């Protein structure tokens, strides 16, 4: 998180869980960034990240990271093929740094 802030970047979570569940999670984990509640998978579908029957027969989001630049353009994505895999923090920061390099 400090590394993201140092680069002027924001972060937001996206999940099918309810506002209440997300409020509980944010409290428990001390999260200050927005966690977007998408129970109808509208945003998740718009980003092409629906995982059909991903959990107990219910549709959820795939684990994925999407980097959007300050002009609203998608610049980098990382979509898991296996639930245990996540992008390395270093890869995310490198992608953000590449944005800065592309926009003098």
């Amino acid at each position, binding site marked *: 998180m400090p590394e993201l802030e140092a680069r002027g970047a924001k972060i937001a979570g996206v*999940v099918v*869980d309810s*506002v209440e569940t997300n409020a509980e999670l944010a409290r428990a984990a001390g999260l200050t960034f927005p966690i977007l509640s998408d129970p109808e998978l509208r945003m998740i579908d718009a980003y092409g*990240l629906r*995982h059909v029957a991903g959990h107990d027969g219910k549709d959820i989001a795939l684990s994925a990271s*999407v980097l959007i630049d300050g002009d*609203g353009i998608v610049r980098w994505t990382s*979509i898991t093929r296996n639930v245990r895999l*996540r992008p390395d923090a270093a890869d995310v920061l490198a992608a*953000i740094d590449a944005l800065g390099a592309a926009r003098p």
Partner: protein
Amino acid sequence: MRRALALLGLVLVVAGVAGYFAIVLAVPALVPYVRNHALPSWLLVGAGLALSLLALRRGGAGRWTARIALGTGVGLAGLFAVFLYVLLAVPGADGPRLGAPAPDWALADQTGRTVRLADFRGAPLLLVFYRGHW
């Protein structure tokens, strides 16, 4: 000697598999690394199988011990591989197209406030889609 070698091999295989779960469940700080790279576990499993195989090829008493140790080790390694690479696999997805405008949205955050893509204009935004809190 042959039996000891065979059993040591099996112990290494078990340690490699059990170690993976022990670390993922008990040492949160190491989880991102271990979860992404099961290599240390596979090195232990590989060493264990090699020892059991070595034991099987040696002469002397304990042929069946060596056979059972190697068979159990291979079975465990197979189950571990199925768990890691089959059970945890998810379908592929293309996601949003690179270089295209990001799809807009209007969704409530954890305080009930509506958040839109436009709210983040002017700064890079990292969206983290996740499976859920359960």
